[in-house]
């Protein structure tokens, strides 16, 4: 809310003035003012995203682009200027990497009717040791899961009811997670 009230033009002027001072703090890779700056132990300045990409380019031979000294993710120092709002280690947030996909072990024992449709989109919540098997099947998009009971039979109706109940439990659990 407070950020929305910040006047735009004065921020632009500030940035222009800053630009002059920051020319000497250019990243050795993109040649721009270093963003999310890190400095190597040999003293060379980079944007963390730039350096990260270089380290990924040659994972077996990680050297400083400027002086060829050995370098690694653990051995760079994040720089926090006074102007930086959050003192967050850039190595933790950039570059955004896809989170590791954690699939839950299948939980067929308790609910025989709830098979997992293969190839669908699974939304699984890997928190704690709670068995989320039923979650997964409820949020399963794509191919409809193979139903154990044929449509129209009482058993089918029952399954539909149970799955709705679990959907509600799931929604309430998510709400509880958000509130907590």
């Amino acid at each position, binding site marked *: 809310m407070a950020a929305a009230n910040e006047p735009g033009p004065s921020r632009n002027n500030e940035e222009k003035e800053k630009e002059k001072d920051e020319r000497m703090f250019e990243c050795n890779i993109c040649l721009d003012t270093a963003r999310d700056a890190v400095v190597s132990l040999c003293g060379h300045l980079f944007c963390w995203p*730039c350096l990260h990409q270089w380290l990924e380019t040659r994972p077996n031979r990680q*050297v400083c682009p400027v002086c060829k000294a050995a370098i690694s993710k653990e051995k760079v120092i994040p720089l926090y200027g006074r102007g930086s709002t959050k003192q967050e280690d850039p190595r933790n947030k950039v570059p955004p990497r896809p989170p590791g996909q954690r699939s839950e072990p299948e939980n067929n024992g308790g609910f025989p009717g709830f098979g997992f449709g293969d190839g669908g989109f699974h939304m699984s919540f890997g928190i704690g040791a709670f068995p989320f098997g039923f979650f997964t099947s409820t949020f399963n998009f794509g191919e409809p899961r193979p139903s154990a009971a044929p449509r129209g039979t009482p058993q089918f109706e029952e399954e539909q009811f149970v799955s709705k109940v679990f959907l509600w439990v799931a929604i309430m659990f998510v709400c509880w997670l958000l509130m907590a």
Partner: protein
Amino acid sequence: MATKKKPSSDQGSSSSALDSSRWEVSCFWERRLQKELMSLMKEPPPGVTVDAEGAGQNLTQWIIQMDGAQGTLYEGEQFQLQFKFSPKYPFDSPEVTFIGPNIPVHPHVYSNGHICLSILTEDWSPALSVQSVCLSIVSMLSSCKEKKRPPDNSFYVKTCNKNPKKTKWWYHDDSV
């Protein structure tokens, strides 16, 4: 953009054309190449001239004029270097070859223009630039004691890939 056909020595007009196009650039590698081009036009190393108009029209391929340094075996000669950049630049090295009628006769330069220089492949670093590559090539030429082709020139030229980066170079002699 207006297409003015002017001699390439007229750098003033092409520099202003670049200024206006600079703000359309968004990609990382294009942005970095624009910066390099601007600084190479503003402060070119001695004996090095970039065809700014051509490079401004197609950032992925630059032609650079190189004069043989005074007091060296190549004094008075003129060479043309071609730089090709991939979208992975500067993490990936540029493809650099001599082109045109005069390929320098040098133990590390093949007659098809390929250059055996380690910074162009395995010793490449994203902190290097067109300018630093040009300076390395100038100094490689300048330190030459005897004008001759590499010993395996005729075999290499017949068998090599068009792209010198595909060659598995064997860097054995840095003194020449």
